[in-house]
């Protein structure tokens, strides 16, 4: 606590203390950051030092005066609320120098009531006032005032101290003000810097302006901010950015000469609304109704008006200042820069887009792209180059345009374009000119439906670029749509023309590529079709295959094949949509494509069918437009039919496509000829096989490799080998012997033997050799018959001759030999020898007679010239008689058993012949029972039949031989054990005799056990 200066010291000491206090205060106010606290401390210290009632600093300026620092002695009331009515302070401020009033009650200076009057001071307990102005840079910024409650002069020391403190305070306040100003400017600079950063860092104008107005509103403590751009063409201001304003304002526009904005723009400087209360500010829109104050600055760039920025407040107390106007102007400058940047960016982006578009078209030119791909590239390039939102490519058809490519085209619009584009577009395409529509909605060249469609799809403007004459016929179009209405300048049209030229080049290139590619594809497809048709052996399948493949080959929709049947053209195959309607129909009408081809014998090519053809052809009548018909040639070179392909819509048929269909026709003709030949051959083969199967000879055919290709039923029967087993193998594999003669020349009829079921089978074989065109063996045909039976007969005949020869010559040899011997003159024989010789001559003569008798029997049996004396014959008697004779002749100890019924058994027979039969059977039994045994001869009578049985216990007869023992000259595999060969006729004669008598002779035998012969004769 500082004591009053004057009360404690001498004047010198007081002066030194004042100096010391001043120094401390000086340090205090210059070093303390917090000016308020420093001044508070200062007024207290000085107030105390001067023994004052109170001390305070009042700040004066633009604003109403206010107490900045105040100290009151204990019990003294505060005067802060009376700041502008403190007369002494006001006087000092007005005079601009220090006033020292010893007693206000009699100070005439205070008589002026405008100073606040003495009463206020007296009420605050004041009698003496010391007030000194605080002057900073020649301006009074405040007043330092001391009040005392007692009257009395202020010492010079007091005055000096007060003035010195006031100077210190002035310095401090000035510094603080400077600091505050600096901070404010720094904040503005920072905001500007931030705004500038936004302007330079962001290229989208709308976004830049939006951020600028946001920053502006914050910086100027405004309730809203906006930015309007000037449309010089329409002379309007259009809202581009609005902060804390109704969003509907964006894009709202009003005449550029209205409102505060119009005025600011006109004057080229910022305006405060309070200066122009009569104006509707900043523009005539209800959204601005609530605001109390506006500040608008024009956007100028190199003197050119570009728009306005503005701020507004609803706060009654907030008054925009000149400083705010400076800030706003700075932001307006930034907005102009942003606008210029955006325009520059837009320009460079457009350049880049254009460049990219041309690159794309150039790429399409360079790459072997199909027409579709090229059109797609052109569409994309065009859309990008002119900055459209979606685009479409249209190519001409006979009647109109057709959609062939698109880029992000809305479905509804694509469908409409595919159906029928607007007439204006067709006109542009026909005339090959650029069409611009800056506002489709109000463009009278488009009808309402088209307008609606485009608008619904999000298009507001369009640009149509012709594609030149690149594509055959009238020009195509690329149509680019824009999301906003926009004006098309000369440069847009120029760009469009360049694009069109580039696209035309690309399309020419792609057409060449298409042609090459399709030619190659045609060739490959043709080769495939030829491969497909060549092996086909059914003519109807060949035609169906042609009908299926031809549309695929040519990219057509349907194919119909006509064939001339009984002089009429009949559809024999049809594939594709609507083909069913044509199936089976007859092209009788003159003027039908098929008939024209037949008459001209040449292809008929139509891009579009004539109207007279439509009524003559069911497919043209059904809506197909283009067709290509070629003749189908017959093997003799004439026309046998027609192949036609049809397409919907206009279709130009390239020469290579015509050639391709002609090639298909050629392949089909060849395949048909093959197939029909094959069918004929197959029929012939079937017939031949039927014949071969029916003929009695075995027929075997082999191919060049000697493999069996034919093995008929008779061959199966004769060889015992099934055809399935023989086919594909060589005869030698299945027959274990070769059929073919050696060499190429058949050796005529041959006899060969093969084995069947373990037995030899003899074949009479004829062979034919088939030669190929080089003279080699192409195959052989063998015909053969089983002559085993005939051969057996031959063998038997041969045996007969041999046997007869033997049977006759043997006794003759003896007869002749002994006779010749007896006649030898050089030899003499005794009686015994002569008797022997003569006996042999006699017996051999007898033997010769028997042989001759047997042969005579055989001859009679063969000729049927046998004399029979049929009558009732006692079988018992015959048996008894013959067995008696046999017993007499038996040499090997055979035992004879006769079994006869008690009563007489009589048969109707020739007795002599029956004896001969029985004799032969008993002789046979004896001869084939070399070991003796019992020979049983039995007779019995059954119903109308007399049965006579001769059974032995001899060697028996093999089953296979049993049927053959009754054949002529057969003597069986078992030779007669006694060596008696005999002529092999006895059983043949026996059966012949029995049969002649109306009876039957049979045998049953078990090899090794004996045989049983049974004679059945009619009972008598």
């Amino acid at each position, binding site marked *: 606590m500082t004591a009053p200066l004057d009360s404690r010291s001498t004047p010198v000491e007081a002066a030194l203390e004042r100096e010391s206090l001043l120094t401390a205060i000086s340090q205090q106010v210059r070093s303390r950051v917090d000016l308020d606290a420093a001044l508070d401390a200062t007024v207290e210290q000085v107030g105390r030092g001067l023994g004052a009632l109170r001390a305070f600093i009042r700040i004066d300026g633009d604003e109403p005066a206010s107490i900045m620092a105040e100290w009151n002695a204990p019990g003294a009331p505060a005067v802060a609320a009376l700041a502008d009515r403190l007369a002494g302070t006001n006087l000092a401020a007005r005079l601009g120098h220090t006033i020292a009033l010893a007693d206000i009650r009699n100070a005439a200076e205070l008589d002026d009531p405008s100073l606040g009057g003495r009463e206020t001071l007296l009420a605050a307990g004041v009698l003496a006032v010391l007030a000194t102005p605080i002057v900073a840079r020649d301006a009074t910024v405040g007043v330092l005032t001391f009040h005392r409650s007692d009257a009395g002069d202020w010492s010079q020391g007091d005055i000096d101290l007060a003035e010195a403190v006031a100077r210190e305070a002035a310095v401090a306040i000035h510094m603080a003000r400077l600091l505050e100003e600096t901070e404010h400017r720094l904040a503005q600079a920072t905001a500007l810097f931030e705004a500038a950063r936004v302007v330079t860092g962001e290229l989208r104008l709308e976004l830049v302006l939006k951020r600028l107005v946001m920053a502006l509103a914050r910086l100027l403590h405004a309730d809203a901010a906006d930015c309007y751009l000037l449309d010089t063409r329409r002379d309007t201001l259009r809202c581009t950015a609005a902060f804390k304003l109704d969003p509907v304002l964006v894009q709202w526009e009003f005449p550029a000469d209205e409102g505060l904005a119009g005025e600011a723009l006109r004057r080229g400087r910022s305006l405060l609304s309070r200066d122009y209360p009569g104006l509707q500010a900043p523009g005539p829109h209800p959204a601005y109704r609530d605001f109390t104050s506006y500040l608008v600055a024009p956007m100028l760039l190199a003197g050119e008006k570009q728009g306005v920025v503005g701020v507004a407040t609803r706060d009654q107390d907030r008054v925009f200042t000149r400083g705010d106007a400076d800030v706003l102007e700075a932001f307006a400058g930034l907005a102009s820069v942003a606008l210029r940047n955006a325009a520059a960016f837009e320009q460079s982006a457009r350049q880049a887009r254009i460049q990219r578009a041309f690159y794309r078209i150039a790429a399409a030119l360079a790459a072997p792209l199909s027409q579709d791909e090229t059109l797609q590239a052109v569409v994309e390039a065009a859309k990008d180059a002119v900055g459209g939102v979606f685009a479409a490519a249209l190519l001409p058809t006979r009647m109109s345009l057709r959609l062939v490519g698109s880029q992000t085209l809305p479905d509804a619009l694509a469908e409409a374009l595919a159906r029928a584009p607007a007439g204006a577009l067709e006109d542009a395409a026909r005339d090959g000119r650029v069409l611009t529509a800056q506002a489709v909605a109000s463009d009278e060249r488009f009808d309402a439906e088209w307008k609606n469609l485009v608008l619904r799809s999000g298009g507001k403007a369009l640009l149509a670029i012709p594609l030149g004459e690149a594509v055959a016929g009238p020009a195509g179009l690329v149509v680019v749509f824009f999301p906003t209405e926009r004006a098309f300048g000369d440069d847009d049209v120029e760009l469009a023309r360049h694009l069109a030229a580039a696209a035309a080049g690309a399309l020419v290139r792609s057409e060449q590529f298409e042609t090459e590619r399709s030619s190659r594809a045609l060739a490959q497809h043709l080769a495939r079709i030829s491969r497909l048709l060549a092996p086909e052996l059914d003519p109807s399948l060949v035609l169906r295959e042609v009908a299926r493949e031809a549309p695929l080959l040519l990219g057509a929709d349907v194919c119909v094949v006509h064939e001339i049947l009984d002089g009429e053209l009949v559809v024999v195959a049809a594939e594709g949509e609507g083909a069913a309607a044509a199936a089976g129909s007859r092209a009788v009408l003159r003027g039908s494509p098929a008939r024209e081809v037949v008459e001209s014998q040449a292809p008929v090519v139509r891009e579009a069918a004539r109207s007279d053809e439509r009524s003559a052809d069911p497919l043209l009548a059904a809506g197909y437009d283009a067709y290509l018909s070629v003749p189908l040639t017959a093997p003799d070179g004439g026309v046998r039919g027609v192949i036609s392909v049809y397409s919907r819509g206009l279709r130009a048929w390239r020469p290579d496509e015509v050639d391709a269909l002609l090639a298909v026709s050629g392949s089909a003709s060849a395949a048909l000829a093959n197939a029909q030949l094959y069918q004929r051959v197959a029929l012939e083969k079937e017939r031949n096989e039927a014949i071969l199967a029916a003929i009695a000879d075995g027929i075997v055919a082999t191919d060049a490799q000697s493999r069996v290709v034919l093995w008929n039923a008779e061959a199966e029967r004769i060889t015992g080998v099934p055809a399935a087993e023989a086919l594909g193998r060589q005869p030698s594999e299945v027959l274990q012997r070769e059929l073919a003669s050696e060499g190429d020349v058949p050796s005529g009829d041959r006899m060969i033997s093969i084995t069947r079921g373990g037995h030899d089978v003899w074949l009479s074989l004829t062979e034919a050799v088939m030669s190929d065109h080089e003279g080699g063996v192409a195959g052989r045909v063998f015909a053969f018959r089983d002559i085993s039976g005939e051969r057996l007969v031959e063998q038997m005949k041969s045996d007969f*001759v*041999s046997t007869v*020869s*033997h049977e006759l*010559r*043997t006794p*003759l*040899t*003896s*007869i*002749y*030999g*002994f006779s*010749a*011997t007896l006649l*030898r003159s*050089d*030899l003499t024989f005794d009686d015994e*020898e002569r008797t*022997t010789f003569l006996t*042999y001559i006699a017996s*051999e003569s007898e033997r010769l007679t028997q042989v001759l008798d047997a042969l005579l029997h055989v001859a009679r049996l063969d000729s049927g010239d046998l004399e029979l004396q049929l009558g009732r014959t006692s079988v018992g008697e015959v048996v008894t008689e013959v067995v008696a004779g046999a017993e007499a002749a038996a040499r090997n100890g055979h035992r004879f058993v006769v079994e006869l019924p008690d009563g007489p058994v009589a048969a109707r027979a020739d007795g002599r012949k029956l004896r001969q039969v029985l004799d032969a059977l008993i002789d046979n039994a004896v001869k084939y029972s070399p070991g003796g045994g019992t020979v049983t001869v039995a007779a019995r009578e059954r119903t109308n039949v007399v049965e006579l049985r001769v059974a032995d216990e001899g060697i028996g007869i093999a089953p296979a031989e049993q049927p053959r023992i009754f054949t002529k000259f057969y003597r069986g595999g078992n*030779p*007669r*054990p*006694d*060596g008696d*060969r005999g002529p092999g006729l006895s059983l043949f004669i026996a059966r012949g005799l029995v049969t002649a008598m109306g009876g039957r002779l049979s045998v049953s035998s078990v090899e090794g056990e004996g045989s049983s012969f049974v004679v059945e004769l009619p009972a008598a």
Partner: protein
Amino acid sequence: MTKVLVVDDEAPIRLLCRVNLEAEGIDVVEAADGVAGVEQARAERPDVILLDVMMPRLDGWGVAEELLRDPATSDIPIVFLTARAEMRHEERALDLGGIDFVTKPFNPVGLAPLVRSVLAKVEQGRGETRRHEKLAELRAQLDS
């Protein structure tokens, strides 16, 4: 002394041969069938064999094959006695190594000269030649 084996199943013919050959000073041994004929040929080693063709058990062809196969008997000249008139049988006889054949009925008086003629040719080493000559002659007749 010349020895002839007569193989024939007919007893009168064997007797006929024996009487007429022995009358000319030729020894005769007999066999009544083919099997016996082979045995006798091996046992007696005759100078000539008169061989019948149609015989039980083993016919003349079988006997000839058997004897020709056996080195001990293969050099014995065989003269077939056959009742068969066809030439193909004679050809077969010669094919089988027979040196000659005689067709029944024959004059038995000529048997001894035939035997001697055969022996003379064999001794002169012309047995095979004669056989081949006969064979060629026969084939020429058959071909014509």
